[in-house]
């Protein structure tokens, strides 16, 4: 069958379409040399800044959200309420931080002589790849999961398709399901285009400039690094790249917190649930699976490895994010998001627990437009029979009921237990071995770095998991 035939050719197609020989980094069935894979691209942070400058990517404004900070202080204990800063990434050419992610891939594709680039994405990344490809004179194909079996298109994804076509890209709109990846590989194989995957070293290195910029911007303004950076977490690239960039600027005391919209109960590959999510990204449907098993991605070794960098991970509800999107527009005069406002919503709740002299920084925004707006998502939700009301956001039920807070003090950043996510990660690892004696010292080093745990703890958990 053609499906299996193409899927079995995955590694060959990857090698041809990326120019990366992943076998080179393999240490064992468990471990691979992550930093060597990143370094072998040959691009330094300064190189990447210069490449991005050529296509007007980066150097976006850092904005202090004074009214939202004031609001936090009104509803917090005396002395509490950190200052909130926002990196306005919507100022990038295609309207999101994804331009950083696309820029290095497209630069690489051009310099290696590829005629075109291709990416599987329903999000802002498609517009970013299409825009960067247009700037470099390359052909571009974007493949999207776009509509359900009734033919109902998700409005935010339709807007991305429109943007891609505006930049001259070919867009393939697919129904729901992971077989999109089969079609992606098949077309890559036929066209010999470059694979501008979200999960290659190029993609992640492109985001490192964002981490470095927020460190530099805040240092210039305030003479210090942020205490906390909140990052909307989905596939893990945003967390990984931003954290690595901060570390390259020696901002190692800055706490990295990931935030996702809670979509518990909805299945990501379900046709029925597809138009009941009200969010196309930044949600737990990507955030959790990609944290516990990064190598599920469309490359051999995923360069986005969120458990390496996440110090805390929190969720917020759909209703809270829509409410905060409205607050950002009306109190700060910035119409952004909605999905990108996930980290802002979490930051608003987290700032209440922090001291007033502390700084919490939200590291991205995205453009707003037709389809890509709370009203578009909420009108679709109503059409799908989802109830919309004011009330306690804890009563929000993904796919059934969206609840906007009645008061900003109801907004909570709900902690996700990272220990549980690590346990799931180790259970995946355990499927490849029978006893922990099979693990070498190199494996333990890799697992330790991949989960932010020391080797003794890794051994303890692996022993326990393998006994089960």
């Amino acid at each position, binding site marked *: 069958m053609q499906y299996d035939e193409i899927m079995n050719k995955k590694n060959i197609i990857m090698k041809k379409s990326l120019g990366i020989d992943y076998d080179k980094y393999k240490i064992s069935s468990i471990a691979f040399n992550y930093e060597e894979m990143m370094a072998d691209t040959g691009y330094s942070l300064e190189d990447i800044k210069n490449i991005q400058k050529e296509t007007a990517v980066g150097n976006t404004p850092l904005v202090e959200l004074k009214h939202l900070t004031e609001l936090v202080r009104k509803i917090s204990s005396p002395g509490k309420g950190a200052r909130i800063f926002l990196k306005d990434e919507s100022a990038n050419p295609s309207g999101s931080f994804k331009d950083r992610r696309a820029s290095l891939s497209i630069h690489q594709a051009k310099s290696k002589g590829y005629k075109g680039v291709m990416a599987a994405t329903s999000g802002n990344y498609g517009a970013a790849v299409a825009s960067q490809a247009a700037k470099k004179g390359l052909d571009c194909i974007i493949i999207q999961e776009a509509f359900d079996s009734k033919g109902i298109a998700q409005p935010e994804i339709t807007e991305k398709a429109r943007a891609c076509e505006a930049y*001259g890209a*070919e867009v393939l709109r697919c129904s729901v399901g992971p077989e999109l990846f089969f079609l992606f590989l098949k077309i890559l194989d036929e066209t010999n285009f470059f694979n501008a995957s979200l999960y290659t070293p190029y993609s992640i290195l492109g985001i490192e400039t964002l981490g470095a910029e927020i460190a530099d911007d805040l240092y210039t303004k305030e003479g210090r690094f942020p205490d906390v950076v909140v990052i909307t977490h989905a596939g893990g690239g945003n967390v990984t790249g931003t954290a690595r960039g901060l570390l390259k600027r020696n901002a190692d005391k800055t706490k990295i917190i990931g935030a996702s919209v809670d979509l518990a109960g909805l299945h990501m590959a379900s046709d029925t649930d597809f138009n009941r999510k009200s969010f196309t990204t930044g949600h737990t449907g990507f955030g959790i699976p990609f944290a516990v098993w990064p190598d599920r991605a469309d490359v051999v070794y995923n360069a986005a490895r969120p458990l390496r960098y996440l110090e805390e991970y929190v969720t917020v509800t759909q209703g809270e994010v829509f409410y905060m999107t409205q607050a950002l527009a009306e109190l700060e005069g910035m119409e952004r998001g909605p999905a990108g406002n996930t980290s802002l919503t979490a930051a608003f709740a987290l700032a209440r627990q922090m001291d007033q002299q502390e700084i919490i920084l939200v590291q991205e925004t995205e453009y707003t437009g*037709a389809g890509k707006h709370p009203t578009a998502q909420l009108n679709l939700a109503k059409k799908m029979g989802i109830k919309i009301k004011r009330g306690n956001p804890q009563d929000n039920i993904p796919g059934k009921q969206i609840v906007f807070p009645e008061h900003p003090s109801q907004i909570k950043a709900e902690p996700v237990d990272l220990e549980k996510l690590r346990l799931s990660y180790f259970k995946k690892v355990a499927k490849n071995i029978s006893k922990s004696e099979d693990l070498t010292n190199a494996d333990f080093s890799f697992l330790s770095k991949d989960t932010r745990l020391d080797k003794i703890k890794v051994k303890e958990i692996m022993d326990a998991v393998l006994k089960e």
Partner: protein
Amino acid sequence: MDTASHIKAGAWVEIYKIILQPHERTAKIPKDTKNIPFEIKARGFLLNDAYMDDEVEIRSLTGRILSGRLITANPGYQHSFGAPIEELLNVGNELKKILADN
């Protein structure tokens, strides 16, 4: 949509194609998805004169020749903002009131 209408070669159109029938789909998906085909829609320039619902070929924006059933001539973008959401209309004023209170 006028299914009888004649579309001229060179027109910008949308086609539809089933890529995988239900039995050809991966096993690792929920039942509701497994029971339906995996479909795509693609846009491009019609290669030859045709009628709606004909099996046709198009040239995509990257110059690829794709085949499928002709479903739309001059396909547009139907997404919008829609009506305002009543439940969000008061949020701004409520928050400004909190800011104004001492």
